[in-house]
């Protein structure tokens, strides 16, 4: 601790008006099983430090991985970061950061079963048994994976904050690919692309019941081969929570990042259709749509106690009764709105500069249910589980594909459909929402790889969702 405090002091001596640092020790374990064979079994460790300084309205940031041999070189980061900040300043006016009260605190993810104390043998056995449950018939490829991370982060600032946070992140999932010689289909559980993730221990994996679900995954992957193609046209669309998580992520979570709105991500991921004057004015969705950004949910992947500027985690409304009421902000950007930071700045690991990131962006539960949404649908489709996704650089036009769907006719589920896709425009889509299922069907989904920034940072974020229904949506656009 004293070494790092001296580094902050050194940065101040070099000319920094403000400085903060993150010292991080990270341990991870990753297993990938392919057709019953453990193809990747990796145990990783890394340790490093990132120093950020503010000089006359500009940021400089320098980071390095640490080992016993280079610990005495960390002082160079102070001069480097200050030089970078000075080089960045090309006459821009002086600005003040949003003031934050210094915090001295500790946080640790609450877990029941430390995933690093569960033997590799048990984890491998679980993945191989899940493979056995999925194999056979028309299945030609099964995969399963588990990922565990323990991140110990120390945040110090020149304003006196000393915050230690330890995060446990756990994820797992399985999938089966089927073929009849010409067609190929996939089913995943509990979510696609690595499964579901949470800030929990190994109990999260046990609760998934990967072995027990294997047989259903196999059956659905095979059934998809014989399923009808997704119909094309405009119709009612019901989305399951897993798919809604992605829908919220792409068409609500990213557009509300204030750094995007201000153009800071323009050349890579793009900007946002939202303008500053739309705050508290824009009708984003129907009156049923309520979205919150909640970094305080225990166990959710996007939760924390403090962000990477030392701002306390918060729960804030984003869309209230359909009206847009808040952006995600930081100490640098909140003053643009004459607001306080709502604490969403996070960096991935020690090597990266913090950015405004989604926390847990949730579609709050409504009063309906899956069954009621189906009963109220004369002609439509129910889709779930992400397969492909794309959205434009203003977050207006999106097109998503899902693994599976079902026809809904006259208030009942009919046959399974394959290769479903749907497309639309963000505001039109959310304004067409006429029903959301209630709390009993509401669940948190963890997305471990939300990409943003240069160099690219893959952030862990969360989304809570149940089922929701949307009217007059264009479906079946892929050929």
């Amino acid at each position, binding site marked *: 601790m004293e070494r790092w405090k001296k580094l902050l002091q050194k940065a101040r001596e070099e000319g920094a008006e403000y400085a903060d640092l993150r010292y991080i020790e990270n341990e991870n374990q990753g297993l990938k099983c392919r057709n019953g064979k453990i193809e990747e079994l990796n145990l990783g460790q890394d340790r490093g430090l990132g120093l950020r300084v503010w000089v006359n309205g500009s*940021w400089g940031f320098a980071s390095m991985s640490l080992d016993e041999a280079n610990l005495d070189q960390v002082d160079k980061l102070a001069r480097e970061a200050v030089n970078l900040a000075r080089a960045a300043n090309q006459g821009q006016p002086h600005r003040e950061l949003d003031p934050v009260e210094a915090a001295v605190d500790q946080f640790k993810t609450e877990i029941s079963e430390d995933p690093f104390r569960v033997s590799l043998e048990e984890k491998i056995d679980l993945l191989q048994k899940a493979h056995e449950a999925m194999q056979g018939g028309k299945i*030609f490829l099964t995969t399963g994976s588990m990922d565990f991370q323990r991140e110990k982060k120390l945040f110090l600032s020149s304003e006196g904050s000393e915050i230690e946070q330890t995060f446990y992140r756990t994820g797992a999932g399985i999938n089966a690919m089927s073929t009849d010689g010409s067609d190929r289909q996939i089913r995943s559980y509990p979510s696609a692309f690595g499964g579901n993730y949470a800030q929990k221990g190994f109990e999260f994996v046990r609760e998934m019941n990967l072995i027990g679900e294997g047989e259903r995954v196999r059956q659905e992957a095979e059934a998809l081969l014989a399923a009808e193609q997704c119909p094309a046209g405009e119709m009612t669309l019901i989305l399951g929570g897993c798919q809604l998580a992605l829908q919220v992520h792409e068409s609500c979570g990213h557009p509300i990042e204030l750094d995007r709105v201000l153009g800071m991500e323009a050349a890579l991921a793009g900007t946002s259709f939202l303008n500053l004057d739309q705050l508290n004015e824009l009708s984003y969705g129907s009156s049923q749509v309520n979205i919150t950004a909640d970094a305080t949910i225990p166990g959710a992947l996007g939760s924390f106690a403090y962000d990477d500027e030392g701002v306390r985690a918060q729960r804030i409304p984003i869309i209230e009764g359909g009206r847009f009421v808040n952006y995600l902000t930081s100490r640098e950007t909140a003053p643009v709105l004459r607001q306080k930071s709502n604490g969403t700045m996070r960096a991935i690991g020690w090597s990266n*500069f913090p950015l405004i990131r989604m926390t847990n962006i949730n579609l709050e539960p409504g009063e309906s249910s899956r069954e009621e949404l189906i009963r109220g649908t004369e002609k439509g489709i129910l889709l779930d589980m992400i397969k492909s996704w794309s959205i434009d650089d203003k977050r207006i036009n999106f097109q998503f594909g899902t693994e599976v769907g079902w026809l809904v006719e006259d208030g009942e589920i009919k046959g399974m459909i394959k290769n479903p896709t749907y497309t639309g425009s963000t505001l039109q889509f959310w304004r067409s929402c006429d029903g959301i299922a209630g709390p009993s069907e509401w669940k948190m989904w963890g997305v471990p790889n939300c990409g943003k920034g240069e160099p690219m940072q893959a952030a862990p974020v969360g989304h809570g969702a149940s089922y929701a229904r949307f009217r007059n949506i264009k479906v079946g*656009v892929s050929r």
Partner: protein
Amino acid sequence: MKKEDLKKAIAKSPAEHTEIFGHKEELKLSRFSESIIHQNISQEKTSIVVVVHQDKRKGSASVTDPSPEAITEAIEKACAAARFQKPDPDFPGLPFSEEEAPELGAYSEKTARCPAELRAEGVARIREIGNREGFQGHGTFSTQASKFMSLNSSGHFREWDTSQAFLKVLFMGGPGGGEGFAQDVQVDVDDLQITQTAERAASKCAATQDRASLSPGEYKGVLEPLAVCELLGYLSFIGFNGLACNEGRSYFSGKIGEEVMAPGLEIIDDPFDNSGLPAPYDGEGLPKRPLPLVENGVFKNYVYDYYLARKEGRKSTGHALPPGFRSFGPMPMHLKLKPGQKTQKELIQQVDRGVLITRFHYVGVIHPQKTIITGLTRDGTFWIENGKVDHALKNLRFTQSIIEALQKTIEKGREVGRMPFRIGAPQAPALLIDGFNFTGVSEMD
């Protein structure tokens, strides 16, 4: 990261077979927005990955600490992990090759030592051009230097260095809200064409004021080099990928010798081309070499790493990814689509009604085997009428099979562009495609 330390760690390893891959990277990056640098970054990272095999059981571990003690500890962890594995009957041992790659211009000391002031001067030039036109500049100016070491207990050792200087410029603004993009990437930062790149972006921004809407449908398309490079990048991942081909998941599975694209299209994986961020060795330290993949529209070769090659009784083609990424399968990272003779203006002159595309955005794969992808155009989309660019268009969504687009290619441009990835950069000319499928338009209802 010292090679003596890595070699000592291999020598002390208790495992039957041990492989180490070391990577040290120094990245300096200036991101600018509204023509002002808003993030100025320096990163120095070391990563060591060890892979051990004992009785054909594999385990791996990674550390950021390159000291002999830390690497030895990582090897011990990897050995402990391997004990829980089932044996892999296909494990072929670790590769050894005396073949050395030729000297390539893959590294520039000037790039590695580029100071922050030089990047700031570059951004200042971009700002001047933007101010002249009334546009705001957004983008990135980065320099990156990497050292790689690959060694194993078969006695194989290779080390190599690479560098890249990368400039992206997006101008936004003007009375009609234009957007124009251009980029350049070079091994040597002195070769970056800062002014020319910014002028290209400014010219596009000026031309994209007041964009019109276009009804979805199939139109002739002139895809500029960056858009074609994006298609090539996806084709590498879902099509030319050696594992996908082997498992029957690729369009190219079982199609060697078959016509898969328009006659006249040639695609080579050329890691030695200095324009394409060359690399002498692959992720197993085996020498890379040029490999033709498509000749005159006919699919010619699969790519292999050592494991897959030995499984099929062949030789590695030098396409292994580093350990930790190999489950994706061996992939060609230096694809080059051979250019034609015509200028882009001449391609446009051949179009009666069609769309000119600068680049794509947020591409997603819908059907890997059919190579169907979806995404959007951005930063310069134009309507062509009677052989001339007529007016700017709002961004369009496309849903299109890459293979079908390449089958419908009727002309190639002569100027080549490139798009850097973490390793290598696909290179391609503009293409004239007789039918590109647009399925939506980006606009508020």
